[in-house]
C-alpha cells in the first residue's frame, strides 16, 4: 500500500514510453520489502515521499524544493547540489535530498559489474534513484542526506576508484561522442582526449576559481552528436585536411539501389529510387561534386566537410586520413545575453596522443589565463569574447588571424587602431604642425 495517494502521477503510468512513475513506484516497493536486508542510511520511504512531493507539485503547479549552497564534500567546491523540501513535515523522507554528480567514463560504456557496485552503494546510502545521465554527462545520484555525502565520497574513491564531477564555477565534467569506439566518421579518439583532459584538469574541476562554469565537449566529426558547438565553451570537432576517400564500386552500389542511402535512415517511407544527382550532388553546399560517366568526382579543395555526402553514402565515402580537430570557442545557452554558437578559433590542430596533447593544452591554458584575469563574475568565455573582441582572443592565444575566422569581414570601418600599428606613433608636435597650418 503506497504511503501517499498519487492519482495524477498514476495517469503517467499508461502509454508506451517507459514510465518514470512506474519505475519510482517499483523502487519504493523494493525498499519497503527490503529483501536483501539492506541497512538503509537514509529514510527507507524516501521514494514514497518523493512521489508524494511530486504529486503535490502536479496538483498545485509549483515546485517544493529549495536550494542549498553549503553542502559538499570537504575540499571540493563542486559535485554536490543541496536540496531541501519546503514541506518537510509531510515528507520527512526527502526533507534533505541532495544531488551528487559522479564523473562518467568517456563514451559512457559500462560493465555490469561496475553498475551493480554503483547501485549497491546508492541503495544503501541514497534514494536508489539516479539520472542516467545528467545534462552535462555525469551519473547523477538523486537524493541523500548531508551526513551521507562524505561517506559516499569515501566509498566512491576508496572502493570504486571513482571521483565526483563538476558544478559551480568549475570546469564541468567533460563529455564526448562515441567516437572511434564504434563510429567510422570519428576523426580523432574522442574518448582518449576527453579522459586525458579530464584528468589533467582535476584541480580546475573540483576547486572553483573561474568566473563561471566552463565546458569542454568532444565531437569526432562535424555531425556533432554531443552538440559541442552549441553548448561548450571549448568545442573540439574532428575534421580532416586531405581528400575524401572514394570507393567508386560502392558509389555504383548506391546508384544501382544495392545499398540503402544514409545507412537506411529513411527506410520508413517510400522516397522513390535513390537519385545521386538530386540527393547528393545538388545538396552539396559548396557545389564541389560531380557525377559523370558513372564516377563521382569531388573537388576536395572546395569542400567544407559538412558530412552530407558521407552520411548519405557511408560505404562509398570516408573522411580523409590527415585528421585532427577544429577548436571553437564561446558557445553557451541563452542566459543571459542570448545564446552563442562556438566561434572557430583553431581551424586545424593535430590530436596527438604521443605528446600528451600538448598543443591543445597550450591553447586551453592561454584562454584560461585570459578569462580568469579579465572575466567578470558570472561571465562565460563567449561573453568575454563579445566584450573584448575576437581580436583579443587571437592575441592571447597567439593565433594568426585568417579569413576562416569570419563569416564575412566587418561592414563598418571603425577599426580601433593601436598606436604601434601606425607609422610614427601617435605623439606629434603641435608646434611643427602650426608652422604649416594657421590657427
Amino acid at each position: 500500500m503506497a504511503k501517499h495517494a498519487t492519482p495524477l502521477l498514476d495517469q503517467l503510468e499508461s502509454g508506451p514510453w517507459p514510465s518514470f512513475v512506474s519505475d519510482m513506484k517499483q523502487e519504493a516497493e523494493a525498499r519497503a520489502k527490503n529483501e536483501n536486508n539492506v541497512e538503509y542510511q537514509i529514510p527507507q520511504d524516501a521514494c514514497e515521499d518523493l512521489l508524494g512531493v511530486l504529486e503535490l507539485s502536479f496538483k498545485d503547479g509549483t515546485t517544493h524544493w529549495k536550494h542549498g549552497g553549503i553542502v559538499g564534500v570537504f575540499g571540493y567546491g563542486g559535485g554536490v547540489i543541496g536540496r531541501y523540501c519546503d514541506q518537510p513535515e509531510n515528507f520527512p523522507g526527502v526533507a534533505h535530498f541532495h544531488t551528487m554528480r559522479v564523473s562518467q567514463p568517456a563514451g559512457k560504456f559500462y560493465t555490469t559489474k561496475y553498475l551493480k557496485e554503483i547501485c549497491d552503494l546508492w541503495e544503501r546510502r541514497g534514494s536508489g534513484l539516479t539520472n542516467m545521465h545528467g545534462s552535462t554527462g555525469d551519473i547523477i545520484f538523486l537524493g541523500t542526506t548531508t551526513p551521507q555525502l562524505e561517506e559516499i565520497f569515501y566509498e566512491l574513491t576508496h572502493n570504486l576508484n571513482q571521483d565526483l564531477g563538476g558544478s559551480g564555477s568549475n570546469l564541468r565534467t567533460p563529455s564526448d561522442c562515441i567516437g572511434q569506439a564504434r563510429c567510422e566518421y570519428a576523426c580523432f579518439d574522442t574518448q582518449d582526449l576527453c579522459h586525458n583532459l579530464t584528468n589533467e584538469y582535476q584541480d580546475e574541476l573540483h576547486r572553483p576559481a573561474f568566473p563561471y562554469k566552463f565546458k569542454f565537449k568532444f565531437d569526432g566529426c562535424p555531425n556533432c552528436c554531443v552538440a559541442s558547438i552549441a553548448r561548450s565553451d571549448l568545442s573540439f570537432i574532428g575534421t580532416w585536411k586531405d581528400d575524401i576517400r572514394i570507393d567508386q564500386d560502392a558509389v555504383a552500389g548506391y546508384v544501382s539501389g544495392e545499398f540503402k542511402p544514409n545507412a537506411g535512415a529513411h527506410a520508413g517511407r517510400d522516397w522513390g529510387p535513390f537519385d545521386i544527382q538530386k540527393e547528393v550532388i545538388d545538396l552539396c553546399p559548396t557545389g564541389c561534386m560531380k557525377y559523370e560517366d558513372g564516377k563521382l568526382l569531388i573537388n576536395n579543395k572546395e569542400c567544407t566537410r559538412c558530412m552530407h555526402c558521407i552520411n548519405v553514402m557511408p560505404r562509398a565515402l570516408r573522411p580523409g586520413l590527415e585528421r585532427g580537430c577544429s577548436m571553437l570557442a564561446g558557445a553557451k545557452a541563452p542566459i543571459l545575453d542570448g545564446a552563442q554558437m562556438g566561434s572557430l578559433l583553431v581551424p586545424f590542430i593535430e590530436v596527438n596522443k604521443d605528446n600528451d596533447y600538448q598543443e591543445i593544452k597550450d591553447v586551453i591554458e592561454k584562454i584560461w589565463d585570459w578569462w580568469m584575469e579579465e572575466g567578470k563574475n558570472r561571465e562565460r568565455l563567449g561573453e568575454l569574447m563579445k566584450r573584448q573582441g575576437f581580436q583579443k582572443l587571437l592575441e592571447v592565444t597567439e593565433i594568426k588571424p585568417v579569413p576562416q575566422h569570419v563569416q564575412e569581414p566587418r561592414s563598418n570601418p571603425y577599426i580601433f587602431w593601436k598606436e604601434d600599428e601606425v607609422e610614427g606613433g601617435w605623439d606629434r608636435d603641435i608646434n611643427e604642425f602650426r608652422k604649416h597650418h594657421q590657427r
Partner: protein
Amino acid sequence: MTFISSGYNPDKPMEDRITDIGPRHFEEFYPEVIKNNKGKWLYHEILKPGVLVHVSETGDEVYTVRVGGARLMSITHIREICEIADKHCDGHLRFTTRNNIEFMVDSKDKVEPLIQDLESRKFDGGSFKFPVGGTGAGITNIIHTQGWIHCHTPATDASGTVKATLDEVFSDFQNMRLPAHLRISMACCLNMCGAVHCSDIAILGYHRKPPMVDDAYLDKICELPLAIAACPTAALKPTKVELEDGTTVKSIAINRDRCMFCGNCYTMCPSLPLADKEGDGIVLMVGGKVSNRISAPKFSKVVVAFIPNEMPRWPTMTKTIKQIIEAYAADARKYERLGEWAERIGWERFFEKTGLEFTHHLIDDFRDPAYYTWRQTSNFKF
C-alpha cells in the same frame, strides 16, 4: 537505522583522503568487439528502427540494439538492465548522449533473442521498459532537466512533459518516416541547464510572474547584497518596509517590468519565490540544429509564446508539438531538417502550414541581436 561508517573519520577529514582521481578509464568498460576494432570501423547500417550494424575492416561486426529509457532511473531498473546485458551482451552496455541505452552483440544470431527479451519487459503500469527505436529519420529520446522532481526554479515538470510527449510521438520513435531526424529537448526554466537552444523542437518551462517578497523574513534568512547582485537585469534594490505590526525591516524592492523570470534571486534567497500555478507554463521553440550537415548549426526560434501547465499530461502542448511534426513531415524534402524547411518555405508559410498563431511575443525585443531578426527586404510571401 544504524549508522554504518564507510571508514571516513569526520574529525580528520584529510586523513587517508583520496581526491582528484577522475572518472574510471573508458577502456575498462569496452566490450571485446569494440576493443578489437576501435578506429577500424568501415561503415554502418540501420537494419531496422533501433538496430544498427557496424562493420570493421577486420571483418568483425557489432550489432547494436538501442532502447529508450527515462533518464530518471531507479537502481532496480539499472539492475534489470545489467541482468539483460549479462545474459546477452557479456556484461557490457552503454548509454547515449540522449539517454538511450545500447546493448551490443558481436553476431547477428544474437540480435533477435535480445530484441525479444527487451520488448517482452513491461512495467506494472503497462508501459514498455525497453522500447527499441530512436535511430535514423525519426524521433529519438528527449533529453531533459530535473523539473519538479528535484529543482528549485522549474516552471514546469520535466519527466512529466517528456513522458507525455514521447507517448504522443512514440510511433516516430519506432519508425523512420520523417524527412530527417528530429531532436526534441526539454528544459524546465530559462536557465536551460539542459541546453535546448539548438533543438528541432524545444520544450521550455517559463515563469511569467516576478517573485513575491517575503518581507517579514527576508532580512533574517537572506543577505540582501547577495540577492540583489544575483539579478541579471539589475531589477532588485534594497528598501525598507513597515510590517503590519509597525516594525520597520530591511527588504528588497523589485522593478517588476525588468524581471526576466529567471529565479536567480530565489537561488540566493528563499524569501523571493516565483513559482505560480497560473503564471508558469511552456514555451515552444523550433528549428535549431547542431550538425554542420548541409547548413550551419542554428538556434531554435520561439513559435509558441505560452501554453499553460496542464497536469498530468499537458494535452495542449503535446497536440501542438504533433501539429508541428505533421506539417513538417508532410511538406519538407528528404534530408531537410525542420529549421531548414522553415527557412526554405519562409516563416510566414511555417505559421500557415503549422496552423500556429503569430503574436507580438514572437518578435525579438531582447537587446541588440533583436534588430537582425526583423525583415529587412521587400521580399516576403503573402
